[in-house]
């Protein structure tokens, strides 16, 4: 059992190999857990919006809480102009949250612990925000790199820093989520390994750590989904309301 704590992150294909134009697009355990997470979200939303009650039942209440939570997050950070992007941010938040939460189940696979997955999402957000910015403001969007009220001497330096910080957005966004998820699951696995190797006599301490870490990881799972969504909102806000 004292296996490599990174083994939980291996991807292996399930079922037949699918190759399109020489690229391997096989269905893997990662894909399976994406499907599971998405299905759980859709089932949850289906149950939550099935009965349109004035006084909601529990699941409807939770679905509505998610709705108002994300709606409030968007209106607080990006204002009313961001309303058309609400479905996307809601989907993003739900997807990341449920992938993280499904990953907390034992023997499951954490989709968001893979840099490629988070990087694709972050790049999509980054490119989409940049396109939106240019569509809304044209070349004036470039003024995002030139903050107002900066002394002329410092301006070239600040502009370079701004450009670097802008370009590093997808990296920070993706690495934050990926690293948090991977680190948490690795720690859980390591402590789990300690429990087994120390046995009945010594295993209690790492077991208690494991229990505490599980609670912490559930918090992190929620927090990272929230951070991912709110950073998307903030980037969107920069693109929609240019106030530099």
């Amino acid at each position: 059992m004292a296996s490599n704590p990174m083994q939980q992150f291996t991807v292996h294909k399930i079922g037949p190999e699918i190759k399109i134009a020489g690229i391997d697009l096989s269905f893997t355990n990662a894909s399976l857990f994406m499907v599971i997470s998405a299905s759980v979200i859709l089932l949850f939303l289906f149950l939550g919006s099935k009965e349109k009650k004035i006084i909601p039942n529990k699941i409807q209440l939770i679905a509505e809480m998610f709705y108002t939570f994300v709606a409030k997050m968007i209106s607080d950070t990006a204002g009313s102009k961001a309303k058309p992007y609400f479905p996307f941010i809601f989907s993003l938040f739900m997807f990341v949250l449920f992938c993280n939460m499904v990953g907390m189940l034992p023997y499951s696979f954490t989709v968001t612990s893979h840099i490629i997955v988070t990087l694709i999402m972050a790049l999509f957000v980054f490119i989409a925000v940049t396109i939106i910015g240019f569509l809304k403001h044209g070349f004036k969007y470039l003024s995002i790199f030139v903050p107002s009220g900066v002394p002329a001497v410092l301006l070239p330096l600040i502009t370079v820093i701004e450009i670097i910080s802008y370009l590093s957005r997808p990296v920070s966004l993706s690495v934050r989520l990926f690293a948090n998820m991977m680190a948490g699951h690795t720690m859980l696995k390591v402590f789990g390994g300690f429990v087994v190797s120390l046995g009945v006599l010594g295993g209690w301490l790492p077991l208690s750590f494991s229990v505490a870490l599980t609670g912490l990881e559930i918090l992190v799972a929620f927090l990272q989904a929230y951070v991912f969504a709110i950073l998307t909102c903030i980037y969107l806000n920069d693109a929609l309301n240019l106030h530099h």
Partner: protein
Amino acid sequence: MKSFLIMFIALSAINTDLYAAEAGMPQLDPTYWASQGFWLILIFTILYISISKFYLPKIKDNLDNRENKIKEDLENANKFKEQSEDKLKEYEIILENAKKEVSKIHFESKNILDKEIQSKKDMIEKDIEKELVKAQKDITELKKNSISSIQKISENIAANIIENISGEKLNESSIKAAVEDISKKNIGKYL
């Protein structure tokens, strides 16, 4: 802290051997990157479309419905409150009028009763006066009668007393005159 540590591991893994999945992180094995990207995009697109087309409008509808319902109910409540206040005012006016009417009726009936009582009292007083006058007449007549009969009795008694004492019979007319004389002198004591 934790994430920095992992970042360090990741970076060192990248530096030493980019594709060393077996040794370090399976995340950096590019075998299934395309597959993960493909499935991610496919599944997320499906998720996004079904959420934005079906579920969010439903939830929004429901939330709006509830808000409208609450607003409507509040409006209705206000309306009913106003109505009840109006009714209360009406009721108070009716009560006030009724009170006025009651006092009016009270006053009128009191007046009528007072008048009736007064007239009855007057009548009874008149009757009593009549009776009094009649009684007075009777009394004076009775007195006169009684005086004359007392005189007769006194005459008899006097004649008898004199006869018994002196043994002689006196003239009836002289006795009568004497009694009359005495009674005239003393009549003021009895009348």
